[in-house]
């Protein structure tokens, strides 16, 4: 792909994703983002063209970043740290989602409506399924 994993490191603080580690990483960001900003700032294009270019540009960026993230080199200690941090983040988000679901259920119940926020329910239910699949696969593997 376009970017090399050795130019980047896993984002530890302030979210998920990758952050540049070497000057090549910063060049990669500049090369990928600057032409897009220039394109968007020029008045020659109609909305349809802008939309299509943005879509293609985002697809390239997302696919490349995912590819870099998959191939990022991490040793066993770094993998363990990442796993613990992700677990803690997942726990926090799950608790907030569960509280949100309960809040909306109570509020709607008091108003005489039966309504469960679908996105929250899907997130929680999806999480349960992903956890089960992961445990099943890990159990089979080792």
């Amino acid at each position, binding site marked *: 792909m376009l970017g090399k994993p050795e130019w980047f490191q896993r984002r530890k603080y302030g979210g998920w994703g990758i952050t540049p580690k070497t000057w090549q990483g910063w060049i990669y960001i500049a090369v990928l983002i600057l032409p897009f900003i220039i394109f968007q700032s020029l008045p020659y294009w109609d909305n349809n063209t802008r939309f299509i270019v943005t879509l293609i540009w985002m697809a390239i960026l997302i696919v490349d970043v995912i590819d870099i993230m998959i191939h990022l080199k991490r*040793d*066993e*200690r*770094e993998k363990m740290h990442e796993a613990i941090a992700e677990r803690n983040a997942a726990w926090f988000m799950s608790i907030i989602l569960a509280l949100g679901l309960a809040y909306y259920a109570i509020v709607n119940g008091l108003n005489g409506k039966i309504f469960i926020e679908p996105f929250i329910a899907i997130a929680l239910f999806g999480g349960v399924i992903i956890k089960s699949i992961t445990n099943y696969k890990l159990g089979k593997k080792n």
Partner: protein
Amino acid sequence: MIIKTKMTELRKKKDMTQQQLADKVDVARQTIISLEQEKYNPSLALAHKITKALSQKKMEDVFIIEETA
């Protein structure tokens, strides 16, 4: 259980830097620092790699397992 290590002593004897050892066993330098400070317990595979990289025959020559009460 506590794992003590002689890594620093053995590495210095071999005139190796932390980065050189890290490159040899394919880990980050920070991992070598954590191991030398006895903050991180290595996996069996990593302990084996480090033992080889420090030209030791047995893991017990590099890592000492201390049982806690």
